[in-house]
């Protein structure tokens, strides 16, 4: 069994808003995240005491023309000459950075580590972003065939639907649920319910003097191809997480120091990472094997099971991915995840709430920051600081699930409030 040589605790967490911020670079966004993280440390700390930095970033080289980022980001928050290392694992880059920060402390080489992630995507056109994200798929055998990123996850969705009977309506219900949660998250890019999008469309038509569109309800809106066009069937616009800018920052310390920083630290119970094969090489396309493997490793490490997890952020880069994740992590049996979703069991008031932050779908998906961003929701929920979206019952155990590429990497972390 895998274990840490010494324990690690999370004592601070902060993020920029996620969204489109013209004129802001990853450095500006990370400074915002760092500032909020600094303020979140209850008893304060001196940034000069930080030993090392680990940052997740997928592709500032392609998005911003900055090929090499770690020392620049470290410089922006006054961390030079400390070691600063960029982790790149596509959309799981900062989940990977979290793991590297944990292992640095667990090994004894560092006592206090700054971990985070950042991405700046919205300076590029949609076509350019599509091309940049596609470089995280198999360049030799998937891109060539015509697969885009929404296309790869759309194909996974058809395999899942065929095997288990889910439909495109299941996917629409994921969007509905995550936007319901995201509406309560002030940091979310689309902090709006689907009903708010309906009102926006109606107001915009009214302003332009056009006939005001009407839909019977939110599902009718999502079914309407004019309101919710197909991008790559069965995936529609509202099945895709947005193109985003954003940053997140976390402060990790050795467990025995945790109470110098806060009386409410979170303890890292597990850190697991799995790598896998491209899509065509998988024996089963209705699941994501890396997530199953990382989940199992994490549960063994923490000595807990899926039933013990009370807060959970999963990587809903596309809607059906969320359903598959809830099965990969063992919350529901294979083929039962879509029913559980449709029955409302994964809603905020359900018995297995998922993505209370709004998920990547509503909160936003600045890919290099997303994994660290998930940890921030667990931090808030376990400390009772999630505001209007706070889960009842003082949850004590939370999990994050961060996928990279078409699921070729998965990072799973488990945190506990004692």
């Amino acid at each position, binding site marked *: 069994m895998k274990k840490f040589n010494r324990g690690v605790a999370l004592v601070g967490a902060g993020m920029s808003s996620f969204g489109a911020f013209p004129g802001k670079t990853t450095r500006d966004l990370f400074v915002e995240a760092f500032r909020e993280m600094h303020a979140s440390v209850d008893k304060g700390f001196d940034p000069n005491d930080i030993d090392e930095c680990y940052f997740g970033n997928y592709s500032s080289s392609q998005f911003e023309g900055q090929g090499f980022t770690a020392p620049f980001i470290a410089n922006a928050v006054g961390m030079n000459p400390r070691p600063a290392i960029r982790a790149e694992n596509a959309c799981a880059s900062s989940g990977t950075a979290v793991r590297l920060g944990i292992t640095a402390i667990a090994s004894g080489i560092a006592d206090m580590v700054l971990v985070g992630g950042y991405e700046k995507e919205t300076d590029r056109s949609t*076509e350019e972003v*599509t*091309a940049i994200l*596609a470089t995280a798929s*198999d360049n*030799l*055998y*998937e*891109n*060539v*065939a*015509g*697969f*885009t990123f*929404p*296309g*790869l996850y*759309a*194909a*996974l969705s*058809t*395999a899942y639907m*065929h*095997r288990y009977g889910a439909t495109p309506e299941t996917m629409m219900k994921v969007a509905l649920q995550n936007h319901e949660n995201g509406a309560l998250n002030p940091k979310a890019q689309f902090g709006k319910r689907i009903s708010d999008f309906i009102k926006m469309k109606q107001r915009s038509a009214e302003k332009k003097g056009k006939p005001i569109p009407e839909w019977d309800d939110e599902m009718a809106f999502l079914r309407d191809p004019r309101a919710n*066009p*197909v*991008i*790559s*069937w*069965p*995936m529609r616009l509202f099945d895709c997480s947005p193109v985003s800018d954003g940053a997140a920052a976390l402060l990790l310390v050795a467990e025995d120091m945790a109470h110098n920083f806060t009386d409410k630290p979170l303890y890292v119970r597990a850190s697991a990472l799995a790598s896998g094969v491209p*899509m*065509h*090489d998988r024996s089963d*396309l209705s699941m994501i094997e890396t997530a199953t493997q990382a989940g199992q490793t994490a549960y063994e490490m923490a000595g807990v099971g899926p039933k013990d997890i009370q807060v959970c952020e999963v990587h809903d880069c596309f809607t059906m991915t969320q359903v598959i994740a809830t099965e990969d992590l063992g919350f529901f049996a294979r083929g039962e995840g879509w029913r559980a979703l449709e029955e409302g069991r994964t809603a905020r008031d359900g018995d297995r709430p998922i993505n209370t932050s709004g998920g990547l779908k509503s909160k936003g998906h600045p890919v290099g920051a997303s994994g660290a961003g998930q940890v921030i929701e667990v931090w808030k929920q376990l400390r009772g600081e999630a505001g209007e979206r706070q889960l009842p019952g003082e949850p004590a155990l939370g999990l994050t699930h961060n996928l990279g590429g078409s699921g070729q990497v998965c990072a799973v972390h488990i945190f506990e409030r004692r």
Partner: protein
Amino acid sequence: MSKDLFSAAGFYEFVDEKKLMGTKCKSCGELFLPPRPLCSSCHSEDMEWVEMGGKGKLEAFTVTLYGPTRMVEAGYSAKNPYCVGIVRMDEGPAISAQILGFDLSKPEEIKVGTPMSLTFIDRKEGEEEKTYIGFEPA
């Protein structure tokens, strides 16, 4: 030359000759499509090329309206989408390819599990003649 390396370049040289080739590990017998120079099961480097029979089943697919620049230049668009999918060959391994021969205005009628046959797609890209693998319903 590239064919000696069991590499992607070798694979696409065969595609230009309208052959779908995988590699077989001479040590443990495992079959790989696309090819591998190193066996991921037993780590042997003793490989040989093996031609696929061209029959398989559709395992997953999507109908894409907003494709990459290369597909846009080939004439595909939101009004003229294309289908791409993963086909599992009767020999066992699976591969990504463009899928032809379905009515793309009714994607809900395309069925995972449909028997498929290998075909090749010739496309002029600038001055170059390119060949891609494709599948159509058998």
